[in-house]
Structure formats: C-alpha cells, structure tokens
C-alpha cells in the first residue's frame, strides 16, 4: 500500500508536523505578549552563536540521543517505554556507585566501567516491566510509569539515608574523584587547534552517544535480532508463526532500551554534575519520546531530533534568562511536537495521501472502457 512516495513519508510528513508545532508555538509566544521573531533570534544566538552555546546544546543533545534511542528501539518492537526517566535515574545510581567505590586509575577505564554499570542498572529497571508484560500480561506503559515513580522514591531514599556524605544537608552523593573526570569537548578539540568553550559541559559522552546511534542502526537493520524485533513490531502473530519468541523479543528490546536510557547518566552525572543529585535527569527521559517520534525511530532521525531539542533546551534557558518567558515554553513545544508527530500523525498524513493519490490518478493513462454487453 504505497500511497505516498518514500521521500514524502520520510521528509514531508515530519516536516509539516514540525511546521504545525512551530506555528502553534509562535502563537503561544504571541499569546503571552512576547515577540516570537525576537524570541527565535535570541534562542539562535544563545544556543548556536558561540562555542559556549554549542557546548550546552550538544550536552543536552547527548542526553536526548540516549533517551531518544531508548524509546526508538522499544517502538520498533511496538512497545511504548515511558520509563526512560526512571531507567536514567537508576543509571545515575550505577554511575555513582562505579565512580565512588572503585578506584579507577584513568578516566578511560572509569568511562568503560561507569557505562557498563549505568547500562546494567537501566537495563534491570526496564527488565522488570518487560518480564511482567511478557510473562504476566501487565501493560508495559502502566508498569513503566509506575516504575518512574518508584525509581524516584528509591533514589530519594538512597540519597538521603545512605549515600549522603556525613554532615551534608544536600540530598546528593559526595563529589566523584578526579580520576573519573571525563574530558570535555574543550579538551578534545584543543589538540586539533579548535578553541572550544571551557565552561560548557559537553563531553566525550557525545561520541559514545553517536556510537550508540550507529550501533542501533546496525542492530536494527543489519542483524537477525533486529529483523526479529521489527518483525515482532509489525505483526506479533506473523512473528510467532515464523518461530520468533514474543517473550524473548520483549525482554531483549526492553533491556537494550533500558540500557540506553541508563547510559545517559555518563553524560549528566559523570560528565556534568560529577556527583549524583536528586532529579538529575530533569525530564530528559520524557523528551526522548518526542525525539523518537520526530526522528521516526530511525537512529539518524533521532540524532538530528536530539540536536534540535538540545537547541530548544539551551535556547529556552537563554530566553528564561533574558526575557520574562519562563523555561516551561520548552515543555509546551515538546508537547506540541509529541502531539503533531505522534498522536495527530494521521491528521497530516490523510490529506497528503489524498493529494498524492489524485496526482497519481491524473498522471496515469486512463483505462479503456469495455463496451458494456447487453444482458441476455
């Protein structure tokens, strides 16, 4: 059923959805009595006008790449993982344990160890809802939502009662040792003669996130497992008939998904804060939903959408700093993107399909009419 050419499917539909979201966002800014053009200008200079701005944009984008990939891989198996937030929180706990209790000799080893711990903790937190869905039939969306709240409570408890250094009032862990300090983009780009801002938090995790994008592309489109995941996502009954185990695919897809969300912690906990604080994820797990929807669950799309949201996030922070527009504007834009690229997808698609069908019908040669034979 190819009613639309591929380019329209991949480029036109998301672009129109995005445009609708942008128009409505502009109307919202107008509605609260501000100038949308000036706001966009401020966002562009604030987020992209300096290496400092770029450093923050890329830092946020790194978070969103991980959480976007997390939602995307689950989408391929037709699972909706809303639990990225909780999985990323638990990933932070893994990173904190790895950095605080293991004496790493060098940051590169610490990065590998912390990544493994983050992925493990995130994967475990996703594996429980996955198991409950696969074996006990409880709805994964509800369980992952519940697990977000449970994660927040558990983390709160652990930070306040166990990992808080003595004498500190702040519900946070001690600062990680210097050996675990990740190189920032400033450190990485200085040898090749680029003077990148020293203050910005973007760090080597960006490269890990990009590697994760490539890994996921290979996994989904170039391996047997990826084929099984997509087949299961397209039709559960067909996949079952082909000998693909639903339990296995649900578990594996969710474990990879949770591991990716957990890995976000190497960026925000290890790379930026250098200690685990309460609410370290700042909603990045939810932004992953918008990123995955906009990126059409394709790793390249997720990469681009993550950078766009990184720009929006940093631009929004600049707006809140220099104008009276609160930071929540970004939440509205995020909601509109989810609404138009996700829930109202058919609103854009249906009229487009009609247009393409009518164009095709006009181009195609008219079939010759058979003379109608009189009935006997």
């Amino acid at each position, binding site marked *: 059923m190819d009613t639309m050419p591929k380019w329209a499917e991949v480029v036109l539909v998301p672009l129109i959805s995005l445009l609708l979201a942008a128009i409505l966002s502009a109307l*919202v800014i107008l*509605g*609260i*009595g501000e100038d949308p053009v000036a706001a966009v200008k401020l966002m562009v200079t604030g987020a992209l006008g300096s290496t400092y701005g770029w450093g923050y944009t890329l830092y946020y984008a790194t978070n969103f790449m991980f959480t976007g990939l997390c939602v995307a891989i689950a989408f391929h198996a037709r699972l*909706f993982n*809303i639990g990225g937030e909780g999985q990323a929180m638990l990933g932070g706990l893994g990173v904190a344990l790895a950095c605080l209790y293991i004496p790493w000799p060098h940051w590169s080893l610490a990065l590998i160890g912390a990544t493994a711990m983050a992925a493990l903790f995130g994967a475990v937190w996703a594996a429980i809802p996955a198991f*409950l869905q696969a074996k*006990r*039939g*409880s*709805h994964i*969306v*509800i*369980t992952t*939502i*519940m*697990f977000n*709240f*449970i994660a*927040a*409570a*558990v983390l*709160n*408890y652990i930070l*306040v*009662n166990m990992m808080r250094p003595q004498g500190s009032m702040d519900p946070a862990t001690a600062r990680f040792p210097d050996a675990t300090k990740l190189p920032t983009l400033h450190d990485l780009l200085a040898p090749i003669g680029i003077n990148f801002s020293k203050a910005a938090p973007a760090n080597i995790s960006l490269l890990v996130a990009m590697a994760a994008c490539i890994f996921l592309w290979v996994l989904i489109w170039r391996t047997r497992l990826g084929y099984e995941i997509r087949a299961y996502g397209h039709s559960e009954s067909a996949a079952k008939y082909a000998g693909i185990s639903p339990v296995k695919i649900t578990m594996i897809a969710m474990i990879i998904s949770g591991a990716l969300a957990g890995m976000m912690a190497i960026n925000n906990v290890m790379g930026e804060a250098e200690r685990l604080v309460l609410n370290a994820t700042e909603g990045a797990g*939810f932004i992953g*939903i918008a990123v995955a*929807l906009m990126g059409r669950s394709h790793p390249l799309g997720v990469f681009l959408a993550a950078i766009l949201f990184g720009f929006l996030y940093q631009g929004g922070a600049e707006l809140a700093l220099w104008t*009276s*527009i*609160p930071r*929540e*504007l*970004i*939440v*509205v*834009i*995020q*909601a*509109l993107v*989810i*609404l138009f690229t*996700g*829930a*109202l*997808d*058919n*609103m854009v698609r*249906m009229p487009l399909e009609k247009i393409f069908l009518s164009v095709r019908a006009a181009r195609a040669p008219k079939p010759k009419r058979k003379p109608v034979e009189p009935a006997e």
Partner: protein
Amino acid sequence: MDYMTLIQLLDSTVRLATPLLLACLAGLFSERAGIFDIGLDGKMLAAAFFSAAIAAISGSVWLGLLAGIAASLALSLLHGLASITFRGNQLISGVAINFLAAGLTVLIAQSWFQQGGRTPSLIGGARFNPITLPFADQIEPTPFIGPLYAELISGHSILVYMAFAAVPLTWWLLYRTRFGLRLRAVGENPAAVDTAGVSVIGLRYAAVCICGVLCGIAGAYLSTALQAGFIKDMSAGRGYIALAALIFAKWRPWYALWATLLFGLFGALETRPDVIEALIGIKVQGQLLGALPYVMTVIILAGFVGKAIPPRAGGEPYVKER
C-alpha cells in the same frame, strides 16, 4: 493512637482521596469506552490553574469551577480528536496532553499574574469553604459519634460530597441505563455496537467528555478547596495515582472508592510519620510510603493478587470496515 488522632487521620484521608476519586471515575468512563487516558494528570493540572485563576479574577469560586471544567473539557476534546477522529495512538496523545498542561499553565500564570507561575492566594468567596452539616455542633459533645460526625463527616467542601455522590451515580449510569450498557459495550466490542446501529464515535466522544468534566472538578478541588491557589505542578502525579487506583479497582466504581480511600490513607500517613511509628514500632520513610500505591499497582497488574483485566477494546481505534 487515640480516637481523635484516628479521626484526624481519616479526615485527611477523605480530603486527599477526593481528587483521586474524581480523577479515577473520570478515567473509568474513558477507559470503559475503550479510550486509554494517561492524560488525567494534565487535565487536572489545567483545571486547577484555570479554576484558581478565574476564581482569583472574578472572586467567584463557581465561575472558577466552570472555567476549570471548560479547560479540562478542551483537553479531553483534543484527546478525542487525536484518538477517535484521527485514530492516533491514545497513549502518545495522553503524554502530549500532560506536557501541554504542565507547560501552558506556568506560561499563562506567569503572563497573567507575574508571580513565578502561581496564582494569587484565594480568599473568601473565591474558595470552596467547608460546609458544616446540620446539628454538627449539637452532636459534637456526644462521645464517639460526636467527633465522628462533626470532624469526619461534616466540615468538608461541597466538592467532597459531590465526589462521593458520584460513585453511586456512576454505578447507576454504567449498570442501570441504556447509555451505560452501550458505553461498556463500546469498550469491549465496538463492532457489535456499530452493527446494532449505535454510533461508536458518538459514544466514545461522550465518554471522553464525561471524563473531562470529572477531571475538571478534581482539578478545581485541588486549587480552590484543598489549597488556596494554584502552584506549579500542583497535581503532583495525582493523575497517575488515580490511574493506578483505576487498575486497582479493576475498572469498577465501588472498588474505585475503596482504592482511592486506601491511597488517600497512604497520603495521609505520609504526613504523620509519628502515627506509623506508634502503630508498627518501626520508623518508616515517607518517600517509601509515597511509592506504595505504585508498588501495589504493579503487583496487582502482575496478577499476583487478583487479576485486573482491562476493557478488551481499550487503546485500539475503531475502524469501520468498508
């Protein structure tokens, strides 16, 4: 624990259970008609803001309530548009609505009142004030029954009594009327309803609208009765707890009452750690108690205690075959 402490505890249980109950019944209507709604929280939040804002501007809490219901209804219609008319993913639409409400309320609050995303404090007629039931003062000196009547049953705002009245009303509507039968049928087997010549789309929109109205009352209760004014993110995940209660209640109205009262009790205990300590002798962390509704819901969902079976056609858009 003495008798008065118990009464106080139950009193705050009722207060905290009321918004959960309203939101839970809201979700019940929607999900029984086959429309999943994880946007309960967002609708409550929007209603909380608009009812507080209009009440603050007009000085009339009833106008505020209407505004709150209207805001919640508007989001419900958006949900209906996405999930019924355009057959989109109901869960994604719900997520979008939650974020839309979380962002827009702060944005508009800042633009209207410049108080950092809150409304001015509501006073006098801009709030739902406690109602003293007849003879409460006369009965109060009576031992046992007196405090029970005067403290626990009397002295709530009208919305509390409305919420409790909504339970038998919902039961009657769902199980004793033609509309209720059709509503339940459309959540189980929409094709059969369609074959019988009843509009699936119309029924589902009706259910979503009822959901919007109830969520609107729940939100208005938060900002004009439970507290005096709107603050950022004041729904504080109550929509999700209501969703949990709905599963706990197995999508039935009377069970919904017990489930929300239970979760309300957890909320009340969270603020009284001394009571828990006196009761079971161990110091329990408030944060862990707050997570209890979620843990219990996961256990129920997993079918370890009883089995929660959702409406069969839930979450699936209905496509008429051509």
